[in-house]
């Protein structure tokens, strides 16, 4: 009960502050917390990135191994995205099988990569109908202070941009780098009262009634949207959020993914 009362007081505090034009950590409504992206920090992984957005930290690792293609796509590699909300990252996460939040996180990140066709899956075919590269993106949140999805999505594309294909390990020949054709970036926004805020921290996310993630590509097209939360959004609000999401994604792409040839 104590925790619930505290949570309600905190919600009111966050709400009142936002109504007066301020955020808990002093940011503007359209500002991200400080972002950092460190690539290639896990040698054993074919690609990896540690993304921090404020105090939120997500480690993403990419592994590749040969496998059998799906029968309806015999010439295409396989992409699988998984997320585990481990208890070490938050007192609110519990051990056990994936729940709806971890499934949603993984599927939204997956949708962005897939929709943008960032990975040329046909290039991951080793032998048609027999053997293809299976690409596993594993999302590993280390510390949850809100907005895991943007950090995870950024970590996924940053990792993929540096992913090596482990031909030697499986005694295969072929290209050694994964070819990446686009750079989808996720931007999450919430609505509190009548205000739209970018990059909610945990307090803000808990006080918000609706949340929208927009994943957009280098050419400004959209390759994924996910609304969540228990309140509706107006068409105009969604249009505003989509526009803002594309703008913010552009800034993030330029700053954190720009030094890599996409």
């Amino acid at each position: 009960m104590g925790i619930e009362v505290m949570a309600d007081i905190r919600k009111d505090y966050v709400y009142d502050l936002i109504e007066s034009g301020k955020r808990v950590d002093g940011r503007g409504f359209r500002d991200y917390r400080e972002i950092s992206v460190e690539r290639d920090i896990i040698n054993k992984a074919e690609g990896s990135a540690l993304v921090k957005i404020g105090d939120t930290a997500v480690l993403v690792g990419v592994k590749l191994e040969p496998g059998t293609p799906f029968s309806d796509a015999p010439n295409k590699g396989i992409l699988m995205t998984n997320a585990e909300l481990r208890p070490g990252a938050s007192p609110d996460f519990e051990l056990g099988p994936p729940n709806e939040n971890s499934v949603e996180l993984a599927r939204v990140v997956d949708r962005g990569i897939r929709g943008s066709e960032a990975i040329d899956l046909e290039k991951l075919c080793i032998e048609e109908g027999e053997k293809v590269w299976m690409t596993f993106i594993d999302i590993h949140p280390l510390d949850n202070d809100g907005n895991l999805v943007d950090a995870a999505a950024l970590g996924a594309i940053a990792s993929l941009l540096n992913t090596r294909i482990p031909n030697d390990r499986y005694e295969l020949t072929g290209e050694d780098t994964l070819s990446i054709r686009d750079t989808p970036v996720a931007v999450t926004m919430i609505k509190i009262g009548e205000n739209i805020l970018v990059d909610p921290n945990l307090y803000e996310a808990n006080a918000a009634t609706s949340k929208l993630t927009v994943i957009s590509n280098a050419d400004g097209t959209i390759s994924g949207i996910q609304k969540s939360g228990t309140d509706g959004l107006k068409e105009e609000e969604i249009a505003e959020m989509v526009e803002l999401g594309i703008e913010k994604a552009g800034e993030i792409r330029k700053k954190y993914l720009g030094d890599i040839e996409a």
Partner: protein
Amino acid sequence: MKEEKIELIKDGKRLDGRGFEDLRPIKIEVGVLKRADGSCYFELGNNKALAAVYGPREKHPRHLQDAKTAVVTYRYNMAPFSVDDRKRPGPDRRSVEVSKVSREALDPVILKEYYPKTAIDVYVELLQSDAGTRTAGINAASIALAAAGIPMRDLVSSVAVGKIDGEVVLDLNAVEDNHGEADMPVAMVARTDAITMLQMDGRFTKDEFERGLKLATKACHEIYELQRTALIEKYSESVGKGEE
């Protein structure tokens, strides 16, 4: 079977003969199950969805109760025989996500605060699937909730829009979904125009997205009228016969 490029639009018509802004045929039956508190059978083209609602009833186990409101659960389930390749029974990652967004689509209209410590359980079964299943499920569930007599602010209506052969079209069927370029399921509260579910995959330009959302909004209003009519017909009939 190798993926082949097929033409989805011929002479301005879609393969099933529909125009770009046409819904598939809809059939609604209210109160089709005896044991459920509320139920609805909803057909959208070849989709056959059946929703059963129980509650408000006591929530078990107790520690999952909410002292302030009812707890809504929503389970979306595809029957193993509902698709071409048999679906393995039980929840998979897709159905877990669909259940979550569907619950959140309906949550805003349910007056949960009237029934603290209770459960309102919504079970949606897809007996046959042909793309747009989550939207058919939400339409069915919304009616079933009303049929269960659960106080609601309004009904929720849902439809998907997508992109095929470069055109933004309404309510994709399975062939269009499999070979199309984008898919965007939407749910909304018609009376207030509040959008309570929005997902998108594939690729849309901003302009296509905006046109798609407008198209979906318009179609949700059409579906809303059908939902209302089905409920009114069902219950004015029973009043007429002197039933409850």
